[in-house]
């Protein structure tokens, strides 16, 4: 297997995720796109770990999974709070400029 095939796949997923964050207005969908990006990072990390024969890449990937879970928790709590306050999950409606 070529290392590059994994890296390219991860890069494409990253770009798809970036597209999603930029385009999505629904808060939950923005979160999903962020998860897509974090997942692509994991593929990179594990591939590089295998490439270097270093366990650090895998360990890092595990930590990233934990962080992703934490971020989703907080993100959904915020979406919920917003929904409760204005009955929408549309970030863009709230003058949400993605700068």
């Amino acid at each position, binding site marked *: *297997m070529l290392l590059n095939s994994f890296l390219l796949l991860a890069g494409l997923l990253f770009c798809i995720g970036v597209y999603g964050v930029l385009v999505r207005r629904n808060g*939950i*969908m923005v*979160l999903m796109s962020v*998860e897509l990006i974090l997942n692509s990072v994991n593929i990179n990390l594990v*591939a590089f770990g295998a490439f270097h024969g270093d366990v650090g890449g*895998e360990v890092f990937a595990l930590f990233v999974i934990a962080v992703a879970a934490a971020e*989703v928790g907080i993100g959904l709590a915020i979406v919920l709070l917003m929904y409760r306050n204005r009955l929408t999950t549309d970030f863009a409606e709230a003058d949400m400029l993605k700068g």
Partner: protein
Amino acid sequence: MSDLLVAQNVFFGLIAVVMLVSAVRCVTTRNVVHAALWLVLVFAGSAALFILLGSEFVAVTQVLVYIGAIIVLFLFGVMLTRASMGDDASVASEKRAMAALVAVLLAAVMGLALFDSFSDTRLVIDEPQRFGVVSDAIFSQYIVAFEAVSVLLLAALIGAIVIARKD
């Protein structure tokens, strides 16, 4: 050995196609629930890739945490915010074009960089990484990171409760 290599390449190709299609559907579908389900396929695909890369522990964690917990959390989020069950509000086509342009440019830059650095680097994986090695590393070299993650999860836990609690 070459049989194994062929099998690895074939499976990689299959997984990659599934993942890319699901990812694209995930960011373009107008239904939140569908997006979450497409995301499941992406996550499952990465778990398969991790097995291909010999990282069984990460693959298992990926399935448990991402598919078992995060997707379920997303679906709960969708259920609790009923208003967004249906279609995502439409987005101006210029904005879509701009975002697509950014993504394509980013992909081009990354592709060039990858071909510059790793054009023909091969990965040889003939045995899986053993669980014990991973756990040894976590609890020796990366012990501070492990503790930091626990603090992070504590902060997230408190924060989520503080935000979502009804007063």
